């Protein structure tokens, strides 16, 4: 099995010397053209309407709204790696080709393959509209060079839309006749890759300059290779290939750009960027941990009994003060073992570190090791054993995090510890707001419901959990959707609009679940009841996930029936057996992939492939696609299911201690093919973060 080595960030950083002092933002400081200064109208690194070769800062998420002459582009971009950028756009074009307003989704990608040198420019290759209906279909190769630290020049060659102004015979024609003419798109439903079109047909040149006039002001001028053939006339009258614009930086994150484009009209663009790797309070604003108490300072009795009730009485209050729930305890010679439930700390090492300090203040001097087990739904996941000496020695050591990790032993959790009396039954509840967006309906592309959600959980015995949620809408317009499904498949998702007509309370979830450990490295779950807003039934799952492995495997089998539109207790007639075999793989500490193969809700068979970048603070940005035996024609618009996933830890945003996260899946089009059941507490997500392969990445929070 592959074991993820614990990387020493210290040595690397020590050599790089003080990486921290200059966290500085802003383009004013001299940078190479590898780092783009802004986003273009498509929401990818660029000038005004044309791209540049640079990338944005690694991990940046950029949001842009651009409007010009009857066209609007709302986009989100992600700098996947330092060189690879991707963007998604939702666009409207009025009087498209003389017809109605066009609503279009498109996806673009850019890769910087050459870094700027003293003489050579940075260079990148990109494809706009990889999978959409082809409105923005265009490809390019672009070069950008810094002339002075504040002046950059860009030139490139474009194909497709970007080869439509002043086009000439494709120079790639020497490679084959295929490149000489741009073929037709295939597939009527859009949403499929059209590689046979890429870099084909006439090519044209574009160029531009940008000048960072002041810290806040950037001036741009460009010669566009886009003739706007489809829009020229009905949408706007294009008179010139020259565009000019000025961008003004409002803050470190936000900017506004105004331009005069194609000799016709003014354009306005708003940009907002944020980076999961930065925030205003990196170490958090939450309470200080209790200090380590060296053995000499412990007032405890010289010896403790191994009675669980005695141990619970000694340890529970101190742990509770840190928001940790003691579930089990055992004194085994000189090792004090506890199992804790962490409902408070986003990073598991912070829970381990605080628990260890609580133990240091309580345990008798005869104890020299603490074994701290993290649990999920009372199932022990991993055990971190630390020496009490290390805790005392490294509390204030300059590299105390690294040393603590090097000396800690982390294993798969052993069998259950004796249950600490008073742990079960456990009842918890909370009330909070909920937001349910409904996107991309041409009648109103941005709808949402906002309401109050009440959650309650009652854990009768270890792993036996009743949980429910009641939502009450307060305000919203999801009920205005009126888009009867034209799907030829069972309407497992395309009737979603009918589920939000009610203004009364709904019960999106009401289940009983049992979690168990069938063996070493194995986790099990059985859930029954109203599993999700649209389906009820029984869901079972088994996961094999060794603690130091990059690979995990899972199997899930469900028998479900469709729920009534009122989201209460009615059931409809449609029933299906659905399930998947899943493989999860961690490429590096931040890049994950998952492959699910099996049967989907509409009874279709197929597979889902997803890739995500998971940051050590809990941020997650991912993309997935599902292809099943449903034909593109039967699937309908979009041809197959695909979407983006994003998870934002609230802790990152507020600096306060909370495990709460906001997660959402954005699907350009929701259809019935390739739809998966949405059950809570899927095991991989539940278990993974408590395993060292994941939490080694945020180990440094041990001392927070």
């Amino acid at each position, binding site marked *: 099995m592959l074991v993820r080595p614990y990387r020493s960030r210290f040595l690397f950083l020590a050599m790089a010397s003080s990486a*921290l002092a200059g966290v500085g933002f802003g383009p004013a400081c001299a940078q190479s053209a590898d780092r783009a200064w802004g986003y273009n109208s498509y929401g990818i690194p660029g000038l005004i309407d044309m791209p540049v070769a640079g990338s944005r800062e690694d991990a940046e998420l950029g949001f842009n709204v651009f409007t010009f002459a009857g066209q609007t582009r709302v986009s989100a971009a992600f700098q996947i790696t330092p060189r690879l950028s991707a963007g998604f756009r939702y666009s409207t074009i009025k009087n498209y080709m003389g017809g109605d307003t066009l609503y279009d989704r498109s996806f673009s990608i850019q890769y910087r393959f050459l870094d700027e040198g003293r003489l050579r420019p940075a260079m990148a290759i990109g494809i706009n509209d990889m999978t959409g209906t082809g409105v923005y279909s265009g490809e390019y190769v672009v070069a950008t060079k810094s002339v002075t630290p504040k002046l950059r020049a860009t030139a490139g060659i474009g194909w497709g839309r970007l080869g439509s102004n002043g086009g000439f015979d494709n120079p790639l024609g020497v490679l084959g006749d295929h490149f000489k003419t741009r073929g037709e798109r295939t597939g009527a439903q859009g949403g499929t890759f059209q590689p046979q079109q890429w870099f084909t047909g006439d090519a044209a040149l574009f160029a531009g300059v940008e000048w960072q006039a002041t810290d806040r002001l950037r001036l741009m001028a460009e010669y566009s290779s886009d003739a706007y053939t489809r829009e020229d006339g009905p949408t706007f009258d294009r008179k010139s290939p020259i565009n000019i614009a000025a961008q003004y930086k409002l803050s470190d994150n936000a900017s506004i750009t105004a331009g005069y484009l194609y000799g016709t009209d003014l354009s306005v663009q708003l940009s907002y960027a944020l980076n999961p*790797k930065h925030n205003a309070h990196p170490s*958090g604003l939450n309470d200080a941990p209790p200090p380590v108490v060296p053995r000499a300072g412990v007032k405890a009795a010289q010896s403790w009994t191994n009675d669980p009730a005695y141990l619970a009485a000694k340890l529970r209050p101190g742990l509770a003060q840190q928001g940790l729930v003691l579930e089990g305890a055992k004194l085994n010679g000189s090792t004090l073992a506890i199992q804790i439930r962490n409902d408070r700390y986003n990073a598991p090492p912070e829970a381990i570190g605080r628990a260890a300090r609580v133990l240091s203040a309580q345990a008798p001097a005869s104890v020299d090791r603490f074994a701290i087990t993290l649990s999920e739904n009372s199932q022990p996941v991993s055990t971190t054993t630390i020496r009490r000496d290390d805790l005392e020695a490294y509390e204030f050591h300059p590299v105390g995090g690294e040393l603590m990790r090097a000396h800690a032993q982390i294993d798969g959790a052993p069998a259950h510890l004796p249950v600490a009396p008073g742990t079960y039954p456990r009842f918890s509840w909370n009330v909070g707001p909920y937001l349910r967006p409904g996107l991309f309906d041409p009648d109103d592309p941005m709808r949402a419901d906002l309401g109050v959600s009440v959650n309650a959980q009652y854990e009768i015995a270890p792993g036996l959990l009743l949980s429910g949620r009641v939502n009450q809408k307060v305000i919203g317009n999801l009920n205005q959707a009126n888009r009867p499904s034209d799907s030829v498949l069972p309407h497992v998702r395309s009737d979603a609009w009918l589920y939000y007509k009610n203004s009364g309370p709904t019960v999106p979830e009401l289940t009983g679940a049992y979690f168990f450990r069938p063996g070493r490295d194995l986790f099990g779950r059985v859930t029954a009841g109203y599993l999700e807003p649209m389906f009820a039934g029984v869901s079972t799952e088994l996961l094999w996930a060794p603690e130091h492995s990059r690979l995990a495997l899972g199997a899930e089998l469900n028998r479900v029936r469709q729920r009534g539109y009122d989201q209460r207790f009615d059931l409809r007639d449609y029933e299906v057996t659905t399930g998947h075999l899943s493989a999860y793989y961690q490429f590096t500490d931040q890049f994950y992939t998952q492959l699910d193969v099996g049967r989907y809700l509409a009874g279709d068979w197929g597979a889902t492939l997803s890739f995500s970048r998971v940051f050590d603070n809990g941020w997650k940005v991912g993309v997935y696609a599902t292809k099943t035996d449903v034909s593109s024609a039967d699937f309908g618009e979009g041809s197959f299911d695909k979407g983006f996933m994003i998870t934002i830890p609230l802790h990152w945003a507020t600096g306060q201690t909370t495990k709460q996260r906001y997660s959402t899946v954005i699907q350009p089009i929701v259809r019935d093919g390739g739809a998966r059941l949405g059950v809570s507490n899927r095991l991989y997500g539940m278990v993974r973060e408590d395993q060292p392969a994941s939490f080694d990445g945020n180990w440094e929070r041990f001392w927070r």
Partner: protein
Amino acid sequence: MRSLVFGAALLALGGCAQLENLSNTVTLSGSRSAGQGAAAPTATAQGEGVGVKVVTQTAPARGLEVVIPSRDANAILSLAGRNGTVETWRTDDDITVSVDRGVVVATRGLGDDLMAADSGPTLAALRGTKIGAYRRTYRFLTADNHSDYVLLGCEMTTAGNETLAGQNLLRHEEKCSNPKMTVTNIYWTNKKGRIQAGRQWVSPTVGQIAIGVLN
């Protein structure tokens, strides 16, 4: 009773003239806070005054006075724990400052905390057992939970006697720098060589804080 004006005095930063005016109720004003704001690439605030209000409080018998100009905050912290020679002091709202014989080695709860720093080289330099340049290491957390280190090359000089809050103390200046930043920490020691007060850099966003030992 030992006064509470240590911190304020410290932040007067070399404004020796002002020290004489100190009493239990004092408002110091000046041009700029030391180490205020982010990025402090050159936090050499030496010789500048500060705008820190010191409110009279009843002093406990023992405590650590802390002034954080970048937060416009000051408080008297009480002892929360001791590990070897390091004492951890805590505010009522659960912010802690850990100090090793007068050298700040950690903070918690400030948003951009000093996770740990070494004190040994500084203490050795103050004792005079270390002569010439030495290195200091500071550890921080990044927003994605990794460690970030700042290494500084330092040199200690003695800057003469000063009267601080009625005590005759010896002022030492520790000038530390790397290619990206420069900072001057100040330590005031008593006749026994113990640090009674100091003005020390703790992190890029918090900047410098002042501490005064009340005993």
